[in-house]
């Protein structure tokens, strides 16, 4: 047990990307090592310009059982989308 290294989740933002994406996990003894491992494992093909690592134990995820109540109510609120609104074509910059 004293040899075990904790699990870290890895997020990479690619050269062309705008946000960090989850790419997988790896084991490391400490944060500095986790960054190096993430670099060695997940950016060999020039995929990355930025790395985030988070201890898996610290990652909080939504419960799939609650997916309905978390996400369904947003579906009928179409007025949040710009296409809901009819603006005459002659009006510019809207």
């Amino acid at each position, binding site marked *: 047990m004293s040899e075990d*290294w904790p699990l870290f989740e890895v997020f990479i933002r690619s050269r062309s990307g705008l946000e960090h994406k989850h790419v997988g996990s*790896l*084991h*490391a*003894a*400490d944060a*500095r*090592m986790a960054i*190096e*491992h993430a*670099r*060695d*494992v997940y950016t*060999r093909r020039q995929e990355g310009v930025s790395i985030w690592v988070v201890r898996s134990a610290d990652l909080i995820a939504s419960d799939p059982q609650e997916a309905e109540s978390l996400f369904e109510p947003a579906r009928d609120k179409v007025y949040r989308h710009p296409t809901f609104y009819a603006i005459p074509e002659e009006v510019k910059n809207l």
Partner: protein
Amino acid sequence: MNAVSGAASPADGEHGAMRPEAHFRCVLRLGDTSLVLGQRLSEWIGHAPELEEDLALANLALDLIGQARLLLAYAGELEGHGRDEDALAFLRDATEFTNLTLAEQPNGDFGHTLVRQWLLDSWQLEIYQGLIASTDARLAAIAAKALKETRYHYRFSSGWLVRLGDGTEESHLRVQGALDHLWRFTPELFAPDDIDERMQAAGVAPSLAELGPQWSRRIDADLAAATLQRPAAQPYPWHGKRGVHTEHLGHMLGEMQYLQRAYPGARW
């Protein structure tokens, strides 16, 4: 023939003039050190203490052999006898290799490998940083690329030095032992010989005498963080740069060069 150096001594010419032979040797030494160290690291693949470290050591090996390819190819051009990177890597005998003696030392355990790596990474940091200002544009370009790699290698090896030095009692004893064993090869790192001095005078290479104390200060800082003791100076003069090696290199080359030697002239 100079019995110690194993190389023909260039006749003394004008002060500061760059001898083609010295230029070739200067680049060759850098390439040989990277090649031998890369070959040693590649022996670890599939046998590292953790899967992630297998990838890390492979990464180091790839970078170092990559440096060797660029440097040896350039050295071959400077020599002008038509030898390419492979002819230099696979068809020279041990007495013609000019790597630092430290690089050819066997891997031992992970701690031993890391201490060797850290000593050479910190050496390469000084050397490549110094070479960026070289009057030799091609060498400067190679050094600039290699420096980025070396910064990462140094981050890796110095990080591990601290983890192992300041880890468990067992790890501390192992790396202190490795350091005590390998320290005797470090004087060669910054001891200039006639080729180093010629290259410095020509503006091709930095001054080893100036870089030595910088390296030493960095070493001391890392050792303090790792709770390790700097060993006492051990004055035996190693001459790997001049082709006089330890017994280890012959065995390493025997393995590395076997296919080209067994099938002379074959294309692979």
